[in-house]
């Protein structure tokens, strides 16, 4: 089963649209209220990063069902400047990171699986999955 939907991110309103899409999909997949809110927050963070640092990009949402496991994948992609120092971006606990606990490490924590691919000058693709327990 491959069930994809997506939202292009240009303006701050698109962040809200991506959140709405994500929350609906999460609810329909059977996630509870707290997990719905977590998935939505992760989408929100990713979309906001696109909006702030790449200017434009896309949030795709895919419902998963493999080997009896159900879940949801978020793919955030942009053709922005890319991330020069991935290690730094994934590091915890810098008061400069703008909001304690937020940012990439936050998204990683909100979801179960998390992967970043980034090339400077070419863009960034982040894939994050949450499984239904």
């Amino acid at each position, binding site marked *: 089963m491959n069930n994809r939907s997506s939202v292009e991110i240009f303006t701050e309103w698109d962040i809200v649209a991506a959140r709405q899409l994500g929350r609906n999909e999460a609810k329909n997949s059977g996630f509870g209220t707290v997990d719905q809110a977590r998935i939505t927050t992760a989408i929100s963070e990713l979309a906001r990063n696109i909006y702030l640092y790449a200017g434009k990009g896309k949030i795709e949402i895919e419902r998963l069902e493999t080997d009896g496991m159900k879940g949801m994948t978020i793919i955030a992609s942009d053709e922005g400047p890319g991330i020069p120092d991935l290690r730094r971006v994934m590091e915890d606990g810098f008061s400069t990171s703008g909001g*304690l606990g937020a940012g990439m490490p936050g998204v990683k924590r909100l979801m179960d699986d998390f992967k970043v691919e980034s090339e400077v000058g070419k863009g960034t693709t982040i894939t994050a999955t949450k499984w239904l327990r």
Partner: protein
Amino acid sequence: MPQEVGKQYSALLQKYIQHEDETDLYAAQQVSRKFIEKKISPEEVISLHKTSVEEIFPELAVKIGPSYDFLIEVMIHYGLALMEHQSLIRKQEAMQIEMDVAVKVQDMLLETSIPKVEGLDIGLVSKPAKKMSGDYVYFIEQKDGEACVAVADVMGKGLPAALCMSMIKFGMDSLRSSATEPQHVLQVINQIVEKSMDDSMFISMFYGKFDKKTCEFTYGSAGHEPALLYRADEDRFIELDAKGLLLGIRKDVDFQQKSVEMSSGDFIVMLTDGVTEGRNAEGFIEEEVILDMLRTMKDRPAQQIVDHLYTELFKMQNYMLHDDFTLVLFKKE
């Protein structure tokens, strides 16, 4: 808590209760980030929430008020954990700064410069896996055309390792030109290390010296990775290894001393296990791969050879170092 913030929260909540619109939840999270920045604790948020709910549903105040008081009580410990976090982050940043200074000081202190000996071309690459390296390279140039090098891998990384390295450096600096034989050098440094260090601290070290007059490379090893000698006329690699315990284990150790004569085009690669034990997704990188790279580059200057090797191996490991990575190459011109 500033009154303004309270009003904003209350208005957002009211709007959300009316329309249940995602926009308000997005706004709420932006507000909550600001709360955290302003060190508003979760129990204060609950109290604010209570006040707002009671404004919106005044008829319910008496009924549900106590449940919020209960929740405030529960949240206090969460608030404390968060405050601890904020103080810890400042502490952590201070430690980070101290570490950064230490790295800078270490770099200056342990600085070494590549000897300029006629007929010998030297290349060096040394990259730390984390901030502070546990690998150490130190060169000494003696007046009579001798180039000596120590390549060491200190067990552990970070500060304790850095302090160990300063022992090696000052140990080598104290050597007179009459006493640069591998056996002697390894013995001297072994004794310093054994005397000064904890039993749990070991160092592996390869020491070699090239003598311009005889074109001999004399070497010894304290439990270190063997070096590789490339014989240009035979186009083959020979392992250079010598018996010797790790530094710091026992006071009196015999270190074997060997030598080889270098001909034009020959080169010797000294390295640490971070080079030979590189891993990629499929497992360890085969030694054959490294030898092939060296062979391809054999006619280039020493520095180009080691730079190329590093770049290729780093790429093969997906731009991650699992261990400190050090290569020193002596090439007979």
